[in-house]
């Protein structure tokens, strides 16, 4: 690992420590928390898209499994929230593995199709099974707590989420430079070449897909407990697209790009709210312009411009 690889991580942690003391009010604190939650999801998704070269168009579905596990299991079955969160992650992992194994034996856009289908089916189920999920209106989520300590205020949530984000960045940096990460990058470069040198391509792809899905499910649970309410919108196709967009705009295969993408695209709808009615047009135009002029994403493009590798 390069010696200065952690400098970025230290900067991120420094920003995270200072931020709560400089945000002007609760509205911005909430925005920052949502940015950080998205950043963790995007880090996981970027491992799949950027490093393994595979697209998931149904990641919001996995987010939804986690979120609804945290909502439904404690409410209807009296499960402890921590147990519910783990159950959501396990179910997501199994489902992702089950779907991925046959798909990854194929080449091309089939994972995109399969994940898209899976996400839409999950979303329709969440909307229709109203007796469990509250249908399109959603349902409340009980408070998260452990050993008598309950997470309630935004300040507490901020520190939890900041810790999660720092750990995720650290873990991603390490993963990329591990033999596992090198194998992933190799198979993105050339599947055949990596097969020749002994990389089990299908197994690695399944592993990274399952991992990023579990990441998403876990953060879905976190989102559900933080917001205190879940709706099927959390799991819809558009949200999946938003997540992929965060990866691509920030920069594929760039850890810090994931953070930048998540921060920008979480803030964008707020910024566009002033456009009254034109939000969709503005959002679409920004997506297109970014991709046309910076097809590699913000961070890698800027890094190349200033002569430094990411």
């Amino acid at each position, binding site marked *: 690992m390069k010696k200065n690889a952690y400098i970025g991580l230290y900067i991120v942690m420094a920003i995270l420590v200072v931020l709560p003391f400089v945000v002007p009010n609760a509205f911005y604190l909430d925005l920052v928390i949502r940015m950080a939650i998205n950043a963790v999801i995007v880090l996981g998704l970027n491992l799949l*898209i950027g490093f393994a070269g595979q*697209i998931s168009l149904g990641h919001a579905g996995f987010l939804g499994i986690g979120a609804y596990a945290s909502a439904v299991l404690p409410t209807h079955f009296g499960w402890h929230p921590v147990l519910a969160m783990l159950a959501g992650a396990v179910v997501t992992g199994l489902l992702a593995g089950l*779907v991925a194994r*046959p*798909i990854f*034996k*194929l*080449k*091309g*856009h*089939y994972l*995109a*199709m*399969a994940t*898209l*289908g*899976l996400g*839409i*089916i999950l979303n*329709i*189920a969440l909307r*229709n099974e109203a007796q469990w999920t509250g249908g399109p209106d959603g349902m409340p989520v009980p408070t998260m707590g452990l050993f008598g300590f309950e997470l309630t205020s935004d300040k507490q949530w901020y520190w939890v989420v900041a810790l999660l984000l720092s750990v995720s960045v650290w873990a991603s940096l390490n993963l990329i430079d591990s033999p596992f990460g090198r194998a992933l990058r190799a198979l993105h470069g050339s599947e*055949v070449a990596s097969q020749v040198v002994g990389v089990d391509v299908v197994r690695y792809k399944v592993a990274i897909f399952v991992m990023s899905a579990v990441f998403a499910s876990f953060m879905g649970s976190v989102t559900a407990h933080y917001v205190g309410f879940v709706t099927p919108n959390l799991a819809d*196709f558009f949200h999946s*697209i938003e997540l*992929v*967009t965060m*990866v*691509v*705009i920030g920069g*594929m295969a760039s850890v810090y790009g994931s953070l930048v993408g998540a921060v920008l695209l979480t803030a964008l709808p707020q910024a566009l709210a002033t456009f009254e*009615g*034109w*939000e*969709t*047009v*503005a*959002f*679409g*135009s*920004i*997506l*297109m312009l970014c*991709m*046309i002029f910076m*097809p590699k994403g913000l961070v890698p493009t800027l890094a190349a411009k200033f002569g430094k590798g990411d």
Partner: protein
Amino acid sequence: MLAQFLQFLFSGVTVGATYALAALGFTLIYNASNVINFAQGEFIMLGGMLAVYFTQAGLPLPVALLLAILIPAIVGIIVEKLAIEPVKGAETVTLIIITIGASLVIRGLIQVWLGKNTFSLPAFSGDEPIQILGATLLPQSLWVLGVTAIVVVALWYFFNRTLQGKAMLATSFNRVAAELVGINTSWVLFMSFAMSAALGALGGILVTPITLTSYDVGIMLGLKGFVAAVVGGLGNGLGAVLGGLLVGILEAMGAGYISSSYKDAIPFVLILLILFFMPRGLFGGKSTDRV
């Protein structure tokens, strides 16, 4: 029993024809550029919405319909020229995001311009249903099926009997080889966007008198068209048509016999099963990849 079955079959085939046209659009662009055009659904929506707009503005039906096909074709060309051509050779994900961006812009503009209401178009030749063995068939369904059939034959002729069509086909097999024998592959890309936008718009116009339209119908129609294209083996024209019909019929049967609230999920369940058990699509041939 039979009447009910026929009824579901009729409605399935009618919607399926629209999926088939959308799937053909996906196939054309995919063959020319390997791009999966997520804006395809918006062309379906544009066709329907523009047809409504022009007929309500008092234009005679044929003129309105012609404009409702031409304008989406031009929009398709603009998307190709401004957004796809400049980033040729970019990663697939990048291209997918660009087409998603384009779809948002188109949908957003229509929403601002024509609002969020649901619109209807009068049927081309009356609403008097035709009775067949106890089931009813709308005359508009015959329009949908008839025009789709004509389009499929015309496309077959174009790709097998004309120089331009063969040039497009050649490009889809091997772009570099096509360029070497003097085929202008930029023109092929241009044509495939114009044609697939026009096909999508045509489907949208034909089905609007039956299913109604609004600014946001493109998302589901487009995704189902994509499913149909994959069911047929992505890149296979005949497969796309059969895939579209199959998806439409299964959806109607599922909605009728199993659960209407899960109607929209049926195409996606189908595609997952197909990917698991028949990964080349139902009608895709075997292929080997060269390293």
